[in-house]
């Protein structure tokens, strides 16, 4: 039987996605952790996994045989991403290309061949029973979607609980990360800005018809616009993580709260139980 896949996401960076995702996976003990935040992959700083396998991620990009090209510009007109242009000769923008292969299909001269280009890497490892899959993209790459797609492919048939640490925001890379998720955990800060970003990821979860709940992070005294948003929209609050300097210190040292002697670590086990129940 396939294990449940839990995506942890937030509308902005620095909200606590990695804190929540790492602690959920570590609390589950026999689980998988997938770091889809390939632009800033920091899950491995916490898990410090023993690397068992490293794999390059490649995408296909067009290469045009200039001796065959007749300057018809059919490929330029076809490419909706504008990855191809033609001045005096064809110009290819590898970073803009989405690897659809359409240009090679439409070229009447068959002058376009697709060749592999390395865009990133996946490291598979293990950390105290947690299987880790960490993706990273090469410097200068415009999109991590291809790395994320391959990451998610690696855990397609996983039977254990899988926690997906998503990139921030609600754009393509997040959509790719939550596509296969059974449940979404939305992490939110207690600010007006935090509530605004929560609204964006909530809309995304609705769009993808994913059941979801909210973890309120950095909770202190005073009003919490993110909590108000949850109450107004009838969204379940899964946990409230206090604004706690001890937790902040642990985190800054790359320690995992549930694996050390953190007095409030029960909250992550309780969160795991609620998420498991909700994902069923």
């Amino acid at each position: 039987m396939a294990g449940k896949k839990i995506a942890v996401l937030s509308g902005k960076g620095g909200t606590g996605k990695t804190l929540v995702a790492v602690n959920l996976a570590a609390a589950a003990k026999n689980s998988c952790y997938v770091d889809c935040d390939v632009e800033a992959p920091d899950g491995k700083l916490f898990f410090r996994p023993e690397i068992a396998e490293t794999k390059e991620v490649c995408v296909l990009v067009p290469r045009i045989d200039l001796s065959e090209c007749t300057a018809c510009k059919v490929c330029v007109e076809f490419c909706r991403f504008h990855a191809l242009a033609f001045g005096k000769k064809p110009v290819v923008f590898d970073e803009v290309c989405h690897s659809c292969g359409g240009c090679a299909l439409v070229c009447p001269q068959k002058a376009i061949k697709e060749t592999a280009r390395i865009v990133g890497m996946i490291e598979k490892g293990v950390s105290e029973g947690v299987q880790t899959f960490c993706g990273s993209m090469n410097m200068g790459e415009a999109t991590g979607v291809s790395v994320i797609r391959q990451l998610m492919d690696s855990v397609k048939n996983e039977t254990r609980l899988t926690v997906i640490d998503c990139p921030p925001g609600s754009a393509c890379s997040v959509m790719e990360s939550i596509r296969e998720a059974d449940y979404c955990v939305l992490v939110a800060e207690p600010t007006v800005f935090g509530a605004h970003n929560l609204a964006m990821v909530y809309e995304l979860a609705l769009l993808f018809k994913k059941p979801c709940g909210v973890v309120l992070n950095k909770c202190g005294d005073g009003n919490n616009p993110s909590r108000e948003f949850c109450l107004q929209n009838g969204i379940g609050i899964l946990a409230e993580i206090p604004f706690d300097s001890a937790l902040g210190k642990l985190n800054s040292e790359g320690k995992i709260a549930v694996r050390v002697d953190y007095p409030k670590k029960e909250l992550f086990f309780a969160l795991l139980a609620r998420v498991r129940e909700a994902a069923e």
Partner: protein
Amino acid sequence: MKIAIPVNESDMKSEVCPSFGRAPYFLLYDTSTKESIFIENPAANSPGGAGIQAAQTLIDQGVKVIIAPRYGENAAKVLIDGEVKVYKNLPGSAESNLAAYQDNRLEYLADIHPGFHHHGR
């Protein structure tokens, strides 16, 4: 020869648009016929690759000179390949910049903007 200027409005008095790729219109001026026309920039609302598409549009129109405040790396690659020269505009209208170009008062635009690509993720 055709000269293009990115403009905010389809009007000779329009200011030069600060964005090349996402300018709403281009003024096209033909030095041989002395005719000015305005075309809509198909890349103005493009989700990506706007500079490339805008540059391609102007090359397809036969433009050889562009007057603009700045342009991006991707647009530059296409324009260099298309042997299009880019000059930096002076403050003022599209019309006054055309005059400035014809009086040799404009300088080559050397600095290429690295672009705002993907900063919002």
